[in-house]
């Protein structure tokens, strides 16, 4: 039941709007209730062919040989696809946004890094025939040791999951093997804190489980174009990905989508469109590639698992003066969107609390699990669970009511946040007050009289006088800017060597002027020892468009 508490921030809001705050009908509801909304699979084609993939039964294995001769002779089989049939058989989703190295094949040719990874695709007259032929493909595997735990994957000698990232870590901004947040000096603050509270938090992968499984149907159209009906959540994202992998201009692709049977983040990975279109290109007939429920659960990318270590320094009266995070995102075998989840997550740290010293090292780790991707608030939900569980632990340590503790430490309007933006439109204090009221929790007099509008700014708007920085985890051989070239050509520079740099002196001083944040995004610094960069305006196109992702936003 929704309850509007309009007494809060009444002067900041106009309640006489035509649509907002008033019930309305969905524009697509008539189609939904009459069963006529056209989902991707609700388009009938004469002579539709069905694609099903041959998948790895192993977590990690080298492919010695794939024998498709028996499968090709099976009834109804029109064509068997292998990695060599894919025009550009290596991609990373965010290459469209100039972020990350191409790391994942459409159909693997040399090795598989997770259970269920596709190595061949059968195109047959019926789904049953495709299923039968899948069983006839013989793959000779050389099983490799696998790693399923993020911290195990970072130990020396751990199996290398993805050759593109030989230390099982994604490379951020071409400079570091993790994403850093440095704000003030946590070690100095820990020394003067009255209490130190530490915690370890972990969550499992979560499957989005949309009612409609992921899929696409592609068919030859007139004028040498292909039409593609898809369940994608990101139509132009999938269009760009298909154009890249099939090395064709996107003008030859006619994508139709938007009516999606639930996605929740699980339908952005663009796994189906390229293969369906490739099938249509090579057979000249309409092709459908869709997961059944078992595939959706086994190989559909979930919200990735996260593990967090949090260490807080607290004063006797419950003020948190320092918070240090070490985070491990389980990306699974390939990057997909986990690299981005971390950028988003680190921007969110230390949670909605004003803490003058914050530190985070967050690793995007490759393991032999199903690749992870987007899901409702990904990058935020897992660490929020950790933060709020930790807040309760802190409250217990200092002997405070957990809601009082939250109100005491909440952002107020005008406070400087750890990612160097001023907080505005804060409402956590008021949320806490309503929660306490609903839950019958007695708050302190200070908490009852607190508001988000008061107590912020001033001293609290200043950046820390000193921020301790370091070079731990620095890498060389990666470029800072465009990781992947656009236009479907060869991917960007490959890592030549990646020795972890000798630990630089910790907490080197980097004095900053309090008024204007002088934080320099890593990527804008000249990259060390990297090949010449292509002309900036073409190469940087994607990065600028998606500037908020990599922290390059300028005002």
């Amino acid at each position, binding site marked *: 039941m929704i309850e509007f508490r309009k007494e809060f921030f009444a002067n900041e809001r106009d309640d006489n709007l035509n649509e907002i705050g008033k019930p309305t009908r969905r524009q697509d509801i008539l189609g939904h209730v009459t069963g006529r909304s056209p989902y991707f699979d609700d388009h009938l084609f004469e002579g539709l062919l069905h694609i099903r993939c041959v998948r790895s039964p192993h977590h990690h294995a080298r492919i010695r040989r794939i024998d498709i001769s028996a499968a090709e002779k099976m009834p109804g089989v029109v064509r068997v696809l292998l990695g060599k049939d894919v025009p550009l058989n290596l991609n990373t989703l965010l290459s469209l946004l100039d972020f990350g190295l191409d790391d994942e094949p459409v159909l693997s040719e040399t090795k598989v890094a997770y259970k269920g990874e596709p190595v061949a695709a059968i195109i047959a007259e019926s789904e*049953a025939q495709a*299923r*039968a032929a899948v069983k006839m493909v013989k793959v000779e595997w050389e099983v490799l040791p696998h790693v399923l735990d993020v911290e195990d994957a970072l130990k020396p000698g751990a199996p290398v999951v993805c050759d593109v990232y030989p230390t099982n870590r994604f490379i951020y901004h071409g400079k570091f093997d993790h994403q850093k947040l440095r704000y003030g000096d946590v070690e100095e603050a820990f020394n003067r804190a009255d209490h130190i509270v530490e915690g370890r938090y972990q969550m499992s992968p979560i499957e989005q489980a949309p009612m409609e499984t992921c899929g696409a149907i592609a068919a030859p159209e007139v004028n040498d174009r292909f039409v593609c009906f898809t369940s994608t959540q990101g139509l132009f994202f999938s269009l760009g990905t298909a154009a890249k992998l099939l090395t064709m201009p996107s003008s030859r692709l006619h994508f139709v989508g938007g009516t999606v049977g639930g996605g929740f983040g699980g339908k952005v990975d663009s796994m189906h469109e390229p293969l369906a279109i490739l099938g249509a290109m090579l057979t000249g007939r309409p092709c459908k590639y869709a997961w*059944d429920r*078992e595939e959706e659960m086994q190989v559909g990318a979930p919200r990735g698992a996260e593990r967090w270590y949090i260490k807080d320094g607290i004063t006797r009266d419950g003020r948190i003066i320092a918070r240090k995070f070490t985070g491990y995102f389980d990306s699974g075998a390939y990057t997909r969107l986990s690299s981005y989840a971390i950028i988003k997550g680190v921007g969110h740290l230390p949670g909605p609390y004003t803490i003058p010293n914050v530190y985070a090292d967050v690793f995007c780790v490759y393991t032999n699990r199903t690749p992870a991707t987007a899901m409702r608030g990904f990058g935020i939900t897992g660490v929020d669970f950790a933060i709020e569980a930790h807040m309760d632990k802190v409250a217990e340590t200092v002997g405070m009511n957990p809601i009082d503790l939250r109100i005491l430490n909440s952002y107020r309007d005008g406070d400087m946040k750890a990612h160097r933006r001023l907080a505005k439109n804060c409402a956590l204090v008021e949320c806490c007050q309503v929660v306490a009221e609903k839950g019958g929790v007695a708050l302190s007099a200070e908490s009852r009289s607190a508001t988000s509008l008061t107590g912020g700014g001033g001293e609290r708007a200043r950046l820390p006088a000193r921020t301790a920085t370091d070079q731990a985890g620095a890498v060389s051989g990666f470029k800072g800017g465009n990781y992947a070239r656009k236009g479907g050509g060869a991917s960007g520079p490959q890592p030549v060597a990646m020795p972890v740099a000798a630990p630089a002196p910790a907490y080197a001083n980097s004095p900053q002027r309090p008024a204007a944040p002088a934080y320099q995004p890593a990527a804008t610094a000249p990259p060390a020892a990297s090949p010449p960069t292509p002309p900036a305006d073409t190469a940087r196109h994607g990065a600028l468009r998606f500037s908020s992702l990599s922290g390059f936003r300028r005002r």
Partner: protein
Amino acid sequence: MRVESYNTLAEAARAMGPDAVFMAGGTLVMRDVNAGTSAGRVVRSADPALTEIRATGDGFSLGSGVTMARVLAHRDLAFLAPVARAVGGPQVRNMATIGGNIFAHHPYGDFAVALLALGARVVLAGQGGAKPLDDLLRERGRSGGTSPIVASIEVPRPRDPRAFGFVKVSRIKPKGVSVMSIAVNLPRDGGRMRGARVAFGAMGPAPLRASAVERVLEGQSLDAATIARAAQLASDGLDPPTDALASAWYRREVAGTHLRRLLEKMERG
């Protein structure tokens, strides 16, 4: 894959073989057909005997094709209604048959657990006489050979409806699959339990009797001390599986608690 339909059960029984599976309501067999993992031949029959419900001297003879929904709708089968209601959602209950349930692997097969506790006997198509369900369930686990077709099931009516208890433990309500199910039949003679039968579902490769519990109950009155002893031995001799719902360890740990709660509820009447 071939689909063969026969007018009579006798013909269907003759058509069975190691490469064939008999399909009743389809809720189990069609899953395999859809996934391309079913037997090479699917045998069906429209024999009206499959859906007959007859009262016999001490109970009922139920055609194996009787659905859960029909059990629910039948006034005289009220003692089985809570069991039928625990199976699937409404659509599944309209399709799933009591005969098919005998062949369901965990986390399905709750109805068979109740039949086992009630001491039901099965009549196999093309074979004379009835045999204990216990025997069929024991044979079910063995691979190879020709699977029989159950023609009908003879279910004794509990003399006192309060002597029969059933619980299905699931994580989702109202429709969730079994962490385990427990069925208990405790006929009493002058306050003492005689011929106690206790069966567990999802605690082994097929529904199983908990013999240790039955021995503890036999000849006793259902009091707190007896219940405590029974709960302690609940998972004795069972072989719980580990699946997506629960580990074998967890099932073993909680079996006693769920049995105790069920027995206490029955004790209260």
